[in-house]
């Protein structure tokens, strides 16, 4: 098969192609075997890598499930925390309050930013929004928590409070809502919007009646994922929400609130079995809520893709 043989006439070519010396054949087979072995090793290593990931992840989820479910008693849902025992009603309420409150703040501003970035994508301000959103995603959540602490808790004198927690988490969620909104809007067919403009609709009418409704499943996915983030966050809340063993007083400032992720972090370090059980119960609730929201968000997206 080497080039000199190919050049020296048809007869010789035919000869060279039919007779391969036994040594060559053996070498080829050996090389083929080596390649196959290497490929099999490669697949095996990839399988092991996936297996490791799967093992660790199932371990985490199983631990949360097993220890969490065994710690779930009616008391957890019916009573507030007393010292390091009791229930988690205050924390469940606090987590939902912070989640809903931060979404109420973040959703209008986040969607507005995403809408602007998508509808007027060529403008300088749209580019500024996109860049700032990407930068804000990169800011570690603890830094935002620290910012909330020095500004709202200390400087404005709100102390640990629902307002400080909600605003901090809202800032954290803004870029996620903005970017998913923009992505969803950019997939709305331009022809639909152009048709509306051609019929004389203004920018506001096109946004409200055409772009936003068509992109709604994508936007909703982003909002749900942001909500999941607000439920699962801990670091920015430690120094903005504080901790309270009582139900919400109804005040948005100068009154700390409890939340589930704090219970995980603080109660696992306590030397009491009852406190540890509460930590596992909280971990189960947080994981369950976050995963349920994530699954729900993806189902919304899948449904839209199925409808097309």
């Amino acid at each position, binding site marked *: 098969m080497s080039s000199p043989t190919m050049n020296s006439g048809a007869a010789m070519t035919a000869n060279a192609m039919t007779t391969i010396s036994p040594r060559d054949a053996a070498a080829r087979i050996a090389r083929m075997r080596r390649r196959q072995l290497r490929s099999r090793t490669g697949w095996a290593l990839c399988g092991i*890598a996936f297996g490791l990931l799967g093992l660790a992840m199932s371990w985490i989820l199983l631990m949360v499930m097993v220890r969490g479910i065994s710690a779930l008693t009616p008391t957890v849902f019916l009573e507030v925390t007393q010292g390091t025992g009791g229930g988690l009603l205050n924390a469940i309420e606090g987590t939902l309050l912070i989640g809903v409150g931060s979404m109420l703040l973040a959703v209008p501003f986040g969607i*507005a930013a995403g809408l602007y970035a998508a509808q007027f994508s060529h403008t300088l301000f749209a580019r500024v929004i996109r860049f700032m959103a990407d930068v804000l995603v990169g800011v*570690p959540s603890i830094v935002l928590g620290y910012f909330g602490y020095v500004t709202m808790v200390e400087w404005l004198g709100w102390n640990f409070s629902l307002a400080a927690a909600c605003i901090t988490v809202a800032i954290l969620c803004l870029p996620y809502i903005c970017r998913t909104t923009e992505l969803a809007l950019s997939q709305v067919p331009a022809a639909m919007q152009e048709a509306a403009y051609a019929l004389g609709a203004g920018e506001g009418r096109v946004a409200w009646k055409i772009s936003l409704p068509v992109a709604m499943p994508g936007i909703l996915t982003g909002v749900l994922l942001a909500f999941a983030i607000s439920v699962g966050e801990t670091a920015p809340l430690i120094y903005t929400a504080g901790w309270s063993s009582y139900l919400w007083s109804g005040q948005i400032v100068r009154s700390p609130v409890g939340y589930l992720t704090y219970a995980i*972090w603080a109660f696992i370090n306590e030397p009491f079995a009852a406190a540890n059980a509460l930590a596992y119960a909280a971990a189960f609730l947080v994981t369950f809520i976050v995963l349920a929201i994530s699954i729900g968000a993806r189902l919304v997206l899948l449904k839209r893709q199925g409808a097309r």
Partner: protein
Amino acid sequence: MNFRRTLIGFASVLPASLIAVILFLAIYYWPAVKFNGLEFIVGTSWNLGNTYGTPIMRNGVAMLPGAHYGILFLIAGTLLSTLIALLIAVPVGVGAAIFLAEAVPGRLRLWLSFLVELLAAVPSVVFGLWGYAVLIPLMGHTVFPIMQRLLGFIPFFAGPTGSGYGLLTAGVVLALMIVPLIAATLRDAILAEPMVVRESAAALGATRFETVWQVVLPGVRKILIGVTILATGRALGETMAVLMVSGNALNYLPPNIYSPISTMAAFIVSQLDSALQDPTGLAVRSLAEVALVLSVISVGVNTIARLVLYRAGLKEARL
């Protein structure tokens, strides 16, 4: 036009809040910068000074006698734990992505990929809980002593092995947290590579693995680099999980891989209470400087990652 003006008003909240965060931290930390100077990033001792002493003035800043702030040990802890996380997460992530994209048949792939994406949503404090309750006893009692016996001849792997809290444990937990991001992004990229490329390689006689390893993977190289940097940014800023497993060491550089460490993010949480004991407020301001150093590193890494991914043709990176 009125609509557009209102929209701009609402939309500018996002840029405004970022600017507010940066400005406020910068204003707040300025006295600390004046006091600490360059010593801040090359010193390895964080010392509030004598909290019962009379505050004295130096460089125009009120301070407690003996106060000294240097965070080199935090920078080292942050970078080393992230490095260990990457050394584990990149090979595992690449392997898992190849396995998901190329070895698993259609229907099952959908489910397994879905599972990997869900894992990216598990809150960090739950990873921390697992690290605290499961990984630390395992590492401290079993893995570390075995490692020390087998690898003890390498300087950084020699004992003492400690209790399980520390650099390697933090690295492993961080690795677990970033593997889903790497695996899911790379899987999408591999699946998006054109079929023609694979067919050409197969026609040349390459085995399926050779096709993936030598043809498909080089094609997604830039995306792998980009997502690795993105994962780096995430690991650098991770707080809760590290806080729960790192041992929160103070004022020394890790002598070996088992040693307790602390990272900048975890330090901000663990030290705020004691920093508040400083009546001059310099300690809290120095913490703001830690937050700013962390933000600068993290934002820089994140921006580079997005640039790389954008140039690799991935317009919308996973957030």
